């Protein structure tokens, strides 16, 4: 336990080191998450549009039919 504390303390500079690593992790992780969520949302909208498009075509086909 003491070794872990000693490691985290990093000779008194731990606060600066862990803050720097945390800031990098938050920014890179946050951006990755935002981009993945954005991609998922666009994919959903595209699927929805595709479904609506095929539905419209089906309806048009039904009207055109005999």
């Amino acid at each position, binding site marked *: 336990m003491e070794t872990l504390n000693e490691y985290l303390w*990093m*000779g008194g*500079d*731990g606060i*600066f*080191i862990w*803050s*720097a*690593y945390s*800031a*990098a992790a938050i*920014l*890179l992780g946050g*951006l*990755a998450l935002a*981009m*993945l969520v*954005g*991609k998922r949302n*666009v*994919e959903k*909208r*595209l699927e929805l*549009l595709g479904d*609506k*498009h095929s539905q*419209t075509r089906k309806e048009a086909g039904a009207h055109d039919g005999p």
Partner: protein
Amino acid sequence: MINLHRYANPNQFMRLSSPLVPVAGLLTCLLFPIGLYLALFVSPPDYEQRETVRIMYVHVPAAWMALLSYTLMAVFSAVALIWRHPLANVMARSVAPIGASFTLICLITGSLWGQPTWGTWWVWDARLTSVLILFFLFVGYLVLYGAFDDVAKGARAAGLIAIVGFIFVPIIKFSVDLLDLRTLHQGASVSKLSSPAIHESMMWPLMVMAAAYLCYLITFLLLGVRTEIMAARVRAGQRMRAEKGIQRGNSE
């Protein structure tokens, strides 16, 4: 000669980038833990900077990637303005938030490194100020890109900002080496390839972290471009549906 316009086709890009995204993503996921292990557990403390030298492994690759991102953004913008390359604007737009994040990481971690090393969080010297301006250029680009109703107009205006702002890239790179300016920032340690001023035990973790950052940039640049292409398809589809609706309304 390679026909770049062939690769500028969005369908072609989607097809080519499809297998690249998971490969680059996997490499990012592999390299980051290895780099962090080397940086936090294997790399020795510096004789002068003690343990704070570990901040270098997140700070320096972020600075490199910020400059690379800005260079890419300026080149893509120039290609879009000169050759009207269909994907160039989308690529420039996609690299901007990634570059802004790298620049912000560079600024924050640099400040956290500066306090225990120099005894101050910030100094208005050539290197630090030019990096701050680089961050504002990324943000300005993104704001300007979205400020117009007409996407093409926004892209053109933002592209001009990106090209003009490219002047800061060499200023940042050479501000501590060539310009005889008062600065607290240390000079280049790695770029002197013949005799790098950094020990092997620190060079390896730095290189692995830089590779991880690069793979991250590639992954999310490709992902961003793919998302933008899909978003453009959604917009086109919605426009077509709206136009069809109007036509149907008129005929009735």
